[in-house]
């Protein structure tokens, strides 16, 4: 009897450890930080903060950055970096919006806010935005793997190129005459009359990413390459091909975030999102993914995205200058990297 109980307790402990390991949940303390923030703001602000509608708004505001952080998670686990995503997002939004306007009606018609062909223009415009992102991702991946250049330099280059190109195409201004149905029918659409469709899309992508990273061969190769690229190569893994895919995914997600920009604001502008690349990277690092590669989680990156989002929201509700958010997040980032280094040192010692 007692034996059976210890056995089942042991089995339970094993299952829990197994689960932790599968999710590779090294970022437990960051999750506690997030819970702590929610608790503090709930105590301070009560129902103004702890309110489903407020949480929904936080999720909506964080959705694009979440997508960038998901892409950055894969890239950083391979010991790479993608600085270009903020410009790729903007480029995708601008080109997608331009195509959408062009296809939705003649120049005279759209200037009078008539969009006779918007049923074609809107979906094609959004698809073009997504494909632009994929295209830039492939460009990054091809340059990195074919020319054997460091990802930092390559994506720094494409960061400038994509932004410059987007500015040329938009002449530096917001893209006008975007059919507002893209906003009312898609951007503002809610599922069950509550959840914005953009949040649902983001959540679905997050779930797919978690599964891909932790349960599939694609994820296994991602970790292996970041852990020891030479070993992966000797084991017969086509490292270049996999890296190309990883950068393509990062670009693709930036493209989807760009399409979301059009849907949310019914315009696109080069003057936005300029620090999203660094914010995504910092979210990933806060979430426990090592910049040295080989380890990380998608869920940690999502938490790392929500910490600044919740902080900003709570500060605004509390009437405190939201700039504090930047100060606090910077500090958390430094602590996160310190914790990562300590953990790595401790492991090596064992």
């Amino acid at each position, binding site marked *: 009897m007692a034996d059976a109980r210890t056995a089942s307790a042991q089995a339970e402990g094993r299952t829990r450890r197994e689960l932790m390991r599968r999710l590779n949940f090294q970022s437990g303390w960051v999750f506690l930080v997030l819970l702590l923030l929610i608790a503090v703001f709930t105590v301070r602000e009560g129902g103004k903060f702890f309110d489903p509608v407020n949480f929904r708004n936080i999720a909506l505001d964080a959705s694009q950055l979440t997508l960038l952080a998901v892409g950055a998670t894969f890239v950083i686990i391979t010991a790479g970096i993608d600085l270009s995503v903020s410009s790729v997002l903007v480029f995708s939004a601008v080109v997608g919006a331009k195509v959408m306007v062009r296809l939705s009606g003649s120049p005279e018609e759209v200037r009078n806010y008539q969009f006779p062909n918007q049923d074609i223009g809107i979906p094609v415009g959004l698809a073009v935005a997504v494909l632009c992102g994929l295209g830039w991702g492939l460009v990054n991946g091809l340059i990195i793997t074919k020319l054997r250049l460091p990802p930092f330099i390559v994506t720094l280059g494409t960061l400038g190129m994509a932004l410059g190109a987007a500015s040329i195409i938009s002449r530096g201004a917001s893209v006008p005459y975007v059919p507002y149905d893209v906003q009312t029918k898609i951007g503002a659409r809610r599922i069950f009359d509550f959840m914005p469709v953009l949040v649902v899309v983001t959540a679905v992508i997050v779930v797919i990413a978690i599964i891909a990273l932790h349960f599939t061969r694609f994820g296994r190769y991602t970790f292996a390459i970041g852990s020891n690229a030479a*070993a992966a190569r000797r*084991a017969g893994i086509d490292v270049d091909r996999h890296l190309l895919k990883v950068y393509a995914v990062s670009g693709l997600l930036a493209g989807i975030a760009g399409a979301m920009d059009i849907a949310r604001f019914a315009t696109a502008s080069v003057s936005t999102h300029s620090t999203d690349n660094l914010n995504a990277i910092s979210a990933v690092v806060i979430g426990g993914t090592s910049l040295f590669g*080989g380890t990380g989680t998608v869920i940690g990156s999502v938490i790392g995205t929500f910490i600044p989002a919740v902080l900003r929201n709570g500060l605004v509700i509390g009437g405190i200058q939201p700039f504090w958010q930047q100060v606090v997040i910077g500090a958390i980032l430094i602590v996160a990297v310190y914790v990562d280094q300590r953990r790595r040192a401790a*492991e090596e010692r064992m």
Partner: protein
Amino acid sequence: MANRDQPVLEARDIEKWFGPVQALKRVNMSVYPAEIVALIGDNGAGKSTLINVLTGVLQPDGGQIFFQGQPVHFTTPHDARAIGIETVYQDLAIAPHLDAVANIYLGRELLRPGLLGKLGFLDRKRMKEETAQQLSRLRVRIPDPERRMSTLSGGQRQGVAVARAVMWASKVVIMDEPTAALGVAQAGMVLDLIRQVRAQGIPVVFISHNMPHVFEVADRIVVLRLGEVVAELDPQRDSIDDAVALMTGSAKAGAATEVA
């Protein structure tokens, strides 16, 4: 024995240059079934280079490799692995952030049956079970096959690396300095693994400059010096002193079988 005439793997007149440095000078070497060939030589003698040529990591600048009598060209390590030659590289070639199961199946992951497999889902359970079986069959003891390799001791890591090679090798196992970083007990375990492989009929090429280890397990010893095969020794007949003298060049290959 008939197969004594037919080497499993043979290097003929292999040359390799690194810029102005000639690392291998018309090297000839054969590996016969079910034997342990030790490849010895001082640091920089060209042992690792020869192994890298034999396993497709490097392309030779001259000469030819034969596998079961047929000329072969390995352009990648994958080519050598595909025909059953497995290597434990000197620099280990494990992924320290992954666990033993993932490392043993690296590049050969088992996928779930059916649709999930087509989507790339890993069959973790089967990989884990077969890893545990393989490790216990080879008596490689590690605390938990699902712990990161970076948390294991050097001997345990080497055990996993050797187990991986043995698991997949059908024709030849090559080990570059597998005992170099190990303590006495752990090195003993690896030497034992080498004998187990031979018992399965699979030849082992064992590189080391630890002479007691070499003389303990080898059936035949090939001495490399400054990129040349200078002698072939018989561990039953020749002594460690002969080997050391040949490695360092203080003796010409007089006592031992001179290589043509």
